[in-house]
């Protein structure tokens, strides 16, 4: 038994050496996966975070509408993250809050708190492709990135925003996704997402998301101050402006349950 374990260990060590030394031998699929794993790996260890999000919705006529939202997240080892989303604007939904336990493969567990009725409702979470608060962001665009959610293909290198980028295609594993694929540009220095293109179910270009003004927190975690989503098919756009980012604030598991959902502001 012990001997078998040792042999296996040695074998995997050799395999690892091969992968890291002879990367040329990797298929584009393996390369895509490795790049995505590295991006995820580099951001691990944020423990918990809070941030304020301002959503600016614009239609083709230039009409604007604002959403003011606070997000609290908790990193969960070996599972998807937990998050609380609290709405402040528009005023008619003030106090509405949304609790989500995300899972890499299984459907997320989601609850919605309706303050007028004081009611907590468990909601079906398969509606990933639907718009979030009437914006150009779908629910799935705002959920946490997990390696298992996609399969990958490295397409090559490209320079955007003056930075050398990896260009990786991602194919959603979930059949309920609104996309056939996403093309993601990650800069080679810090593995930060610079741009994402979303392709709809007919494989036509639907949206482009650009990340602007990255800032580094705790000397490790990069977050963009602004995310701009442009829908090429309907001409509408949504801009996210992030402020008051904080990490390791001491949030606990107990801050993410039905009780906190009813109380949170």
């Amino acid at each position, binding site marked *: 038994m012990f001997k078998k374990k040792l042999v296996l260990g040695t074998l995997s060590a050799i395999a690892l050496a091969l992968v890291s030394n002879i990367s040329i031998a990797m298929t584009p699929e393996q390369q895509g996966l490795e790049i995505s794993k590295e991006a995820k790996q580099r951001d691990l260890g944020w423990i918990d975070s809070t941030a304020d999000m301002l959503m600016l919705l614009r239609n083709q006529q230039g009409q604007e509408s604002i959403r003011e939202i606070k997000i609290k997240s908790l990193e969960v080892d070996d599972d998807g993250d937990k998050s609380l989303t609290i709405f402040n604007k528009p005023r*008619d939904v003030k106090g509405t809050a949304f609790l989500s336990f995300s899972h890499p493969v299984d459907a997320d567990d989601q609850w919605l708190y309706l303050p007028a009725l*004081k009611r907590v409702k*468990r909601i*079906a*979470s398969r*509606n990933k*492709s639907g718009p979030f*608060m*009437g914006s150009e962001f779908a629910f799935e665009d705002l959920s946490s990135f997990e390696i298992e959610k996609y399969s990958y293909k490295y397409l090559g290198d490209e320079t955007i925003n003056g930075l050398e980028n990896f260009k990786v295609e991602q194919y959603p594993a979930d059949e309920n996704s609104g996309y056939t694929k996403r093309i993601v540009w990650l800069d080679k220095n810090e593995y930060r997402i610079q741009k994402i293109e979303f392709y709809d179910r007919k494989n036509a270009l639907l949206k482009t998301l650009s990340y602007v003004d990255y800032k580094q927190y705790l000397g490790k975690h990069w977050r963009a101050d602004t995310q701009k989503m442009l829908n090429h098919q309907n001409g509408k756009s949504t801009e996210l402006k992030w402020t008051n980012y904080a990490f390791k604030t001491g949030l606990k598991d*107990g801050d993410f349950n039905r009780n906190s959902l009813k109380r949170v502001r």
Partner: protein
Amino acid sequence: MPIKNLAALALLLTFNAAASDFEVSGKVAVEERYFFETNQYDNQFPHSQTSILVEPEFYWGWNNGDDTVTFKPFYRLDDQDSERSHGDIRELSYIHASDDWELRTGIRKEYWGVTEFQHLVDVINQTDGVEDLDGEDKLGQLMVNLSLVKDWGIVDLYLLPGFRERTFAGEDGRLRAPMIVDKNNVSYESSAQEQHLDVAMRWSHSVGDFDIGTHWFHGTNREPILTPEQDGDKLVLRQYYNQMDQFGLDVQATIDDWLYKFESIYRNTNDGNFWATQAGFEYSFVGIFDSNADLGLLTEYSWDSRGEGSIQEPGASFQNDLFFGSRIAFNDMQSSEVLMGFSTDLDHSATSFILEANRRLGDNFKAVIDIRVFNSSDPIEQTYAIKNDDHLQLSIEWYF
């Protein structure tokens, strides 16, 4: 010098504001109701009814939101029904939250349950009956509620001092029975009357796809027994509140696009006991007709062991009733939504139809249209009394 003092004061105020959170929000609404048919009973108004409601909320939070005080008064002014002009303190409470427990003290509202068309297990608060027919508007209830968060679920313990009588339409108002409910001469089974100390316990938990809750309530029944009695030269309905013990279970299973909902209660009183169940399901279609709109379809069924009863001994209003509903969410910038519901009593011919449509106007206003239609040909059915009260309501709500 005064300027300096002012500056110091301003600075102090700023610091205080930073240490604690104070927020004012709320809503003001104007509602216009139009009844298609003229009044069925004497003294009721013929067609239109206008009312204004104000519901501000004052919130103070400190210790990172672990300590909060909320004050939410409510007032409605109605131009036709003097009983519908009424005020209430919806909330005046202090909440302290710790890691694994929470203490909530004061006047509050507590919602239990999972179904949409009837709320059997939701018994903590009294129904504010003049507000709407759906029973979702509640009067504030004085309580001490200790909530314990355990690995095996959340346990809520309630002490409920002070009882609130249900509100009913007045003599001038529509949506009432032929006899008006007497606000005075209310009687109780308990010698403590409305001062009876009620107690309740609830355990709720989420296990995988299931959300489960179970409760026990001991105290004054929120549903009055209404008995016709002579009051001078007219007949009125006298309210009698008995004591009840209620056990209940509510379960929702959320599996893929399906929601399965189940509520059941057993209520024991000195005037009899009964079982009742409300159960059904909801299915959501996402992005219908290649649009952003979602369509939810709901069906629920009600059963009550008391049955339909008789003219002399009325039974339950939902004893063998079927409900269908649909909800269309357009997922647009204005969050436009249309809700429709249809109910039918399978024991006798009575149906009702509701429609609710709403849309945000700009950032702070909302327009709401409500339509209610009742059909009933059997005097035993409770909607028979309001069969002429079909109406349309237009509301403009301002949120601040």
